[in-house]
């Protein structure tokens, strides 16, 4: 007699970075967490810069700023800005969904069933499009502008 095996869907710690067969929204969740932790790391460095170095006066501040205007730091800053834009817009989508918006009215479960993803998915695509546009706007200003 054939024994029924449990589904092999336990990902363990791998699930922090890889979501197997789950759909787009689950990968957005992983990216949400990664960008959140990355911004937290930046926040600690940023707080060091604006407290310990700033209180020491003009010379130390200008030395720090000349180091931070290095192109590699510019690339890092750009990544932080993109992480913030992503985290903010994805977070806004999550807040709206958690409060019950963007997913249509509930319908009785009569065959053929329709899940709410068909209402949510267009908003998700629109959010990704806005993120791409903002990433390009910031890229333009990081190249053209000097700050």
């Amino acid at each position: 007699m054939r024994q029924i095996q449990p589904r092999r869907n336990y990902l363990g710690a791998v699930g922090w970075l890889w979501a197997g067969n789950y759909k787009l929204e689950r990968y957005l969740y992983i990216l949400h967490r990664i960008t959140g932790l990355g911004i937290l790391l930046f926040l600690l460095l940023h707080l060091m810069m604006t407290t310990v170095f700033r209180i020491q006066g003009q010379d130390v501040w200008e030395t720090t700023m000349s180091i931070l205007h290095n192109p590699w730091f510019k690339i890092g800053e750009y990544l932080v800005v993109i992480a913030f834009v992503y985290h903010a817009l994805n977070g806004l989508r999550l807040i709206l969904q958690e409060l019950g918006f963007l997913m249509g009215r509930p319908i009785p479960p009569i065959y053929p069933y329709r899940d709410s993803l068909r209402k949510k998915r267009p908003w998700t695509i629109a959010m990704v499009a806005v993120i791409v546009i903002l990433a390009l706007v910031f890229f333009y200003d990081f190249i053209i502008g000097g700050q």
Partner: protein
Amino acid sequence: MRNTYLRLLQLVTGILIAVLLGIHIVIMHLDAILGFFGVDVNDVTSWGSMIERARQGIWAGLYIALLAVVLYHALNGLRNVILELTPSARTERVVTWAIIAFGIIAFIGGTYVPAALLAG
């Protein structure tokens, strides 16, 4: 029940950060686009420009408010990530209090410098 309120505060601070940090990033980085709309921020990272903003109460207040909401949002998020590993109740208490202590120290350190610059 307590975690429900922490979660609700996470949503509220998230919206506040989207506004306040949006202002901060646009002022700090989008100088070409601000110039297009006729706003001159005048080399924001120079010492003179920084001190000029630090002497104005509205900027100091904005940055301290931003620091408070960002620290709450970031450290509560970090706590959620750590507690997802479902540690024992004792570890959970240690994590919670360590994060609260770190948050208070970071807030005091981050408030002292703008307050000192605002005073002169």
